[in-house]
């Protein structure tokens, strides 16, 4: 299972993802600079969190024009697994790989804290190691996590994660993470790489990564 982590200018969670994959779940992984185009040998592409291009204009809006994104699109069309975390999720919606958009949090402030998440689907390659309806704790850290889509019915089967009990940012229908129709592109606002080790207070995120490994 080969992971590739895309590095945009001002990504800032790429090294955290790298550490979890290499040292916690012990799988091969490499960084891919956003100006590259080659995804050869990669089984799963990760778009990490951060502030690509400083979030200027709109988060994810500039990163989607990076040369690598064309390759990511082709890769996704061929059924390759794509995981977008936080800013990565924002880039995936900007690039049209996932439906909807992420707007400013309701309180207009950055929020960094643990939230409760309900696992809505376990038949995806990203969540197969969870139980359906399981409540897990994961941290969020974002300014723009307020998920919006005009017609929630159109994606009702694509919702994988929902905020449970407390909606921290105003996201419609409590949506915290969705997949595309095919189920091979997954975007989520919580940071699973920040809760994959006991020493950090929670291991609830690790199964996102081990699910991916098991799926192949």
């Amino acid at each position, binding site marked *: 299972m080969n992971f590739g982590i895309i590095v945009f*200018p001002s990504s*800032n969670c790429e090294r955290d993802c790298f550490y979890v994959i290499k040292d916690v779940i012990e799988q091969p992984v490499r960084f891919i600079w956003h100006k590259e185009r080659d995804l050869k040998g990669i089984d799963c592409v990760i778009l990490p969190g951060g502030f690509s291009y*400083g979030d200027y204009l709109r988060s994810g809006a500039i990163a989607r024009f990076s040369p690598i994104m064309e390759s990511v699109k082709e890769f996704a069309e061929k059924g390759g697994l794509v995981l977008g975390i936080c800013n990565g999720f924002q880039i995936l919606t900007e690039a049209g790989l996932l439906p909807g958009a992420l707007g400013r949090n309701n309180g207009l402030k950055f929020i960094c804290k643990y939230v409760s998440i309900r696992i809505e689907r376990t038949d995806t390659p990203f969540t197969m190691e969870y139980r359906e309806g399981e409540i897990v704790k994961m*941290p969020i850290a974002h300014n723009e996590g307020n998920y919006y889509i005009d017609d929630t019915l159109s994606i009702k089967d694509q919702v994988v994660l929902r905020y449970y009990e407390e909606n921290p940012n105003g996201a419609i229908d409590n949506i915290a993470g969705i997949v595309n129709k095919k189920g091979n592109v997954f975007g989520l606002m919580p940071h699973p790489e920040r809760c994959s080790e006991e020493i950090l207070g929670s291991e609830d995120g690790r199964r996102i990564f081990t699910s991916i490994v098991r799926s192949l």
Partner: protein
Amino acid sequence: MRTKEELKRISMSLEEYEMVKSLLGREPNDLELGMIAVMWSEHCGYKHSKKTLKLFPTSGPYVLQGPGENAGVIKLDEEVALVMKMESHNHPSAIEPYQGAATGVGGIVRDILAMGARPIALLDSLRFGQLDNPRTRYLFSGVVSGIAGYGNCIGVPTVGGELAFERPYTDNPLVNVMCVGLLKGRLMTGKATGVGNSLILVGASTGRDGIHGATFASVELTDESIERRPAVQAGDPFMEKLLIEAVLEAIEKSDAIIGLQDMGAAGITSSASEMAARGGFGVEIEVTKVPQREKGMTPEEIMISESQERMLFCVKKSREEELRALFEKWGLNFAVIGEVILDRVIRIKEKGKVMGEVPIDILTEDVPAYDLKPEEPKEMKRLQIVEDIPSIENYEDALLRLLASPNCSSSHWVYQQYDHMVETNTVGIGTGASVLRVKGKDYLIGVTTDEEGRYCYLDPYTGGMMVVAEAARNLICTGAEPLAITDGLNFGNPEDPEIAWYFVEAVKGMSEAARRLNIPVISGNVSFYNESEKYTVYPTPIVGMVGKIEKLEYMCSPSFKDEEDIIYTIGEPGNLGGSIFIEELIGEVRGKPKLDIVLEVKLQPILLKAIRMGIIKSAQDVSRGGLAIALAECSIWGNLGVEIDIDTNLPKRELLFGEAQPVIIVSVTPEKEKEIEELFKGMPLRKIGRVNGDSLKIKINGEEIINIEILELEKVWKSGIKRWMK
């Protein structure tokens, strides 16, 4: 000859101008005078502080780099060193809170980067006026947003700090940012050596922002200050993040780098002249080679601009191109702007024509150092006496009132706006000192900032000792052995004899405690002139301290852990002098703070030993608000009630809300009672109760005076700041 008005504009006295003339042997031109003025500003030149700062102990077995470089460095093990520094950005934050605070973060991060280290944590020590003032709320909210906006984007977690709201900070808030970095490769320094080697400016382009920022920071704030908004720089965290990655990659991949330095206050002038001074050489700079973002900038403007996100490198001649490719990959400017020369001068050229030349010594060594004229304030004795300590009937009300005070309550409103988890090293946060792991190592790092302006205002010597002692105590309560200090000294106008007295006494007190506890001061910052027409800030020395937790099992936290655990106090609770209680009830800061330094020195190593032996399950330092507040916090964090039962001769209010130091609350399992009593033999150790139920119950001399549910306490504690910031 210059008029007094001309000199006032650059904050230089007539005497200083005469000195410049005699050192130079002629009249300086505008460019030369501009450069000298910024380097002779208090902010860059430490004119009123450098003699006093010599009191600090600065050496120790772990110290790799003490004061005098971009940041201090200590050794953690054979492979890893820790880099730390604190810096203030008070005046910019008073005028333009968002950018002032943001650029404060940016500057300190580059100081750490300049040593070759990756920045891994930020801490902020913040002081504002009281929240009933709308401008205070504007400043507070702006500063927090600025720190968040910048720190979150560059991916350096903000893991700690502290916060207080007191009237003297109304016009002049204090924003001190500490950064910690980890160094795994070569220790870099800010020096320029070797004739012909290149001076290279990397990062952002140069504009007119921050012209004379350093001189602006070296006078009191007035109504006119607002007109000096152009003196406040604007930050670009995206550029900073690129700079961090590019610089670290460059240091790792290339051995062509001789030295590097942040371009902070006084811009190219200070970085070039300081690098030359350290290297023992001179530098020649061609200003037209500096990438500019504005048209028609004069050489003076280019030389003293404080545009952010720039650094200066000294690189081996003809090795520039290998580095250029790397910086250009990150989309950064990479401009050869000059070279190292043998003459120990800074020579400025424009299109090849010499526009000015100043000996390096005039800019560095020859900065005047003034003797302070300290004089104890006459009202000192009066301040230290509290005639009528208000008596209270309802202790529950008093506890809830203190708990709801923004000075005692939870700061989650603030730290939820900071990304405190990025880098995935944050193991403990929000309860005293913060704890970070070091990936690949068994040990962890404890880090804290501490400060109590109230104590220093009432007794600067004792207050100075307390701030060092408390920081060390906070670290020990996490299981960390304190290793080093970085300081941030914030005072009013040092030319005022009473301010000078406060400054000298506080530094003496800090030095004394640092010496007795054997913790060296390895870097720091001084900020004077923190006053407006109406207020002078409390004398506010801040201590940033780091320590090492040898392994995870030694880590300790303040929250109560299990029912039936026995609760002890170590130390003698009491003394309302300088307490929040007095301030809340009589609206004034009065009394004499108290520290038993002899007990402190004896107690700290034993406490650390007891934690390492696994005897102690929780440890909490008693500080603001006293014993009652500290117990409430341990209960809230542990979500466990307590039953306290104490017999005392002290007035109840003094026992509950006094802030004497050192006092520590610890909990142990009943089986370990003998062991702890044995360990602390000869010290004031007292069993005060046990962990039980879901309420905080306090009985004094047999009478129950407090019984409040933990959920209720938590609600009140969390409301303190939030209720103002809707």
